[in-house]
């Protein structure tokens, strides 16, 4: 790896920026283009670049990288909770709260409702998946898989 100081700095900057963009995609998902999937890919790409430039040891110092599998699992759980939880309460699957036509909780211009949970879950799953795949392939890369 070409671990010159400048490249490392750029990689770190790209990482921060990619996460900022991912965050924007995530919170604006329901108003404009972008969703959890894109956010997860952006955040994952940032890490991939970090990985390629700064190498394994440096990257795996990060908490999110070490726990990528857990993050993916938590994401899957987060997707499934809004699906299953209403059924436990005797309502049809995927009944969202607040119900249709009712005003949602508002955080500034951000409307909060349970649909966001699915997007956050997809984000965590895709991000965790991408990072895990890179980590898993690292020792001796032979096959690839699309995140």
């Amino acid at each position, binding site marked *: 790896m070409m671990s010159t100081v400048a490249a490392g700095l750029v990689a770190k900057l790209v990482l921060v920026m990619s996460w900022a963009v991912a965050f924007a995609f995530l919170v604006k998902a329901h108003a404009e283009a972008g969703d959890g999937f894109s956010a997860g890919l952006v955040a994952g790409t940032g890490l991939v670049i970090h990985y390629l430039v700064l190498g394994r040891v440096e990257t795996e110092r990060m908490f999110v990288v070490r726990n990528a599998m857990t993050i993916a699992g938590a994401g899957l759980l987060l997707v499934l909770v809004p699906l299953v939880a209403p059924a436990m309460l005797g309502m049809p699957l995927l009944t969202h709260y607040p119900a249709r036509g009712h005003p949602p909780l508002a955080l500034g211009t951000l409307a909060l409702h349970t649909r966001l949970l699915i997007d956050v879950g997809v984000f965590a799953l895709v991000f965790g998946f991408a990072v895990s795949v890179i980590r*898993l392939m690292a020792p001796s890369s032979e096959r690839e898989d699309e995140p």
Partner: protein
Amino acid sequence: MFAFVTVVLPLAGAGVIAACASRHTLVPSLALVFALITLCCAVVAAATGAAFDLPWVPSWGARLTLEADALGSLLALLAAAIGTTIIAYSGPYITHELHERAAPKTEVGRFFAFMLLFLGGMVGVAFARDLILLFLFYDLTAVCSYFLIAFDRSSGTARRAALMTMIVTGIGSIALLAGFLISSAAVGSLDIRELTPTSLPRGVKESTAALIAFAALTKSAQVPFHFWLPRAMAAPTPVSAYLHSAALVAVGVFVLLRLEPFLDDTVAGSMLPYLALLSIAVGSVIALGSDQLKQILAGSTIAQYGYVVFLIGAGGEAGRAAAPLYLLAHAIAKSALFLTVGVISYATGEDRLSRLGGLITRMPLLAMLSAAAAGALAGLPLTIGYFKDEALFEVALGRSVLFSAAAVVAAGLTFAYTARFWIGLFLGNVVGRAPLPHAPTGLILPIAVLAIAAIVGAVVPNVLARLASAAGSSTGMPAHLDLRYALDIPLVLAICGYAIGATIYATRRSWLPRMKGMLRLASRLGPAAVYERALTGLNRLSDRAHHLEVRDLRDRTAAIMVPAGALVAVASIAVFGELRLAVSPFRPDHVPLLIGIAAVAVAAVMALVSRTHLVLVLALSAVGYTLAAVYALLRAPSLALVGVLAETVLTILLLRAFTTLPIGTLREEEVEEGRASTQKRRHRIAGVVAGLIAFIVALSALSAPAGPSVADAHRRLSERIHTPNSVSAILTDFRGLDTAGEATVLGISLLALAMLLAQRNVR
């Protein structure tokens, strides 16, 4: 409420024991405490007729409905009482067995947890009034039996036996569920009480009866599904004593009793007595011909449950009441005999009749206690067993001379194999090495309890008769049974039975070798062989299909694409007349689009002819990026965004992966393939044909006149759910189920990938 507590308590107990399995010295007593409290609750529930009702899955109409009626109480009390006795027995026995096997002591926790879970399942089956609930508990008993039979995980025999039990009774339980669903769909209720026999149409009734009878026959080890029971003897002896005498096999006939109105006046119902007689014959042959003690008892169980099925099938007022009585008497006697076998193999280490004998001088107490149990099994007077035989004769007399004769012969067979078992063990010359000085009191005491129960039952025939009559009539049909000591025809028949039995036993030297030959022949040609062959065949079929699919990547792709392509082609031919292939007139704003498409085409061709991986990856990503640009031109920002991002990640990952490959790999593959140039030509033709079909289908789909689009509705609804971005609205709400499914697939493939790559790293 007590009905509910009785069911939940052992289940909770199983959890508690599983949690503190590491404190293995505490576990047996803890399990005993749970079992005892369960027994007390069962008594209270039975005495008060407690009921419990809670809506459970309202949309299906399934309710958590438990009721301690007479029949259910009988089974629950039986399961709890014998379960408690056997859990008490298991404490010293299992500890000893684990010690012998040099297995970790913490396995005790697993044993007792499953025993309690099984007890909960039994009480649940007994009290359940809802069909779905009944099915769930029915399956819980099956699952527990799997783990209990295969308790010795190091033994292949035990594991195979457990699997066989699981498969045979599992097929039965699927039939049971099918029967339940058919009948409840016809009636519109899942409550057993509301499924009155008159409420079902003829066809429904016949098929339901057949399915339920099938399930019960598999569970109660009746011919031709009996073969799992002798093999299940690989289980630890307390498990056999509980599951294979009193509990698991009893569930089958209990379901028959519970759902008797379904069987009344059906083909399946009228077949039952004959199948039962066959089971009695087969079971008796196994019991008479086997050498292993537990096999003798297993054969006897098959035969004895044949009697119960016979009583149910023969029906009538007496039959309905006699069946529960028989269940009770047999369970007490048989579990005591199993426990006796356990003590003997504990003390001597032997489990074959031919290597044992004359034990009465070494273990007089055990001999007396098991004599009471054996007497009860053989139907001798002054034991509870006398009444089970009297009831049998009464029912048979009420039907026909043929049935009466069969009943007498059956009683004779029972007498004969019981005599062979007990006399062979305790009387005669001392065989084999001397037993240990004493068996622990903890093992003798439970047998004493059961033996005393067998004797006490004989003293109170009126109580037994009342219990049995009440249990028999709890389906709403009349049941009545009189039990007394009297000089009547049943007594004469009983004496005939003893005489036949004594004769069979006395002449054993002449038939024993032939019986053994028959058993060997049966194991080669019988239903067990059919089962083995079916299992092997299915395995081979599965292997072949698997091999066909995973031989190489091309085959796997073909396995999906060829049928799909064939379907599309057939559909295209079917609607050939209506196929419209229109090209819209050229407009200037199409120019960027056309350029994009041309670029995609060029990149695609590049990918085809590329000679190195680097070019291949770049060409493929060029296809992706250009498509994303096309989406952007078509004003689909979300698609374009996802396209660009996915392509970026994919390209980086592919490049990363290919850097590890030697540069010439792709060319080498080409050269290798080049040898078979006809094959290559065939691939090209297949590719062109597939491409043409795809092109025609896509073009015709796009040429269809545009109807009202679903997009408008999506856009309108998106606003209402505060998600102006309708792509997000579709993903998280309208098609949220799809998203959840895809997320699950992604999660599973990540796990699979992790496992595959972890294996590679280990290697």
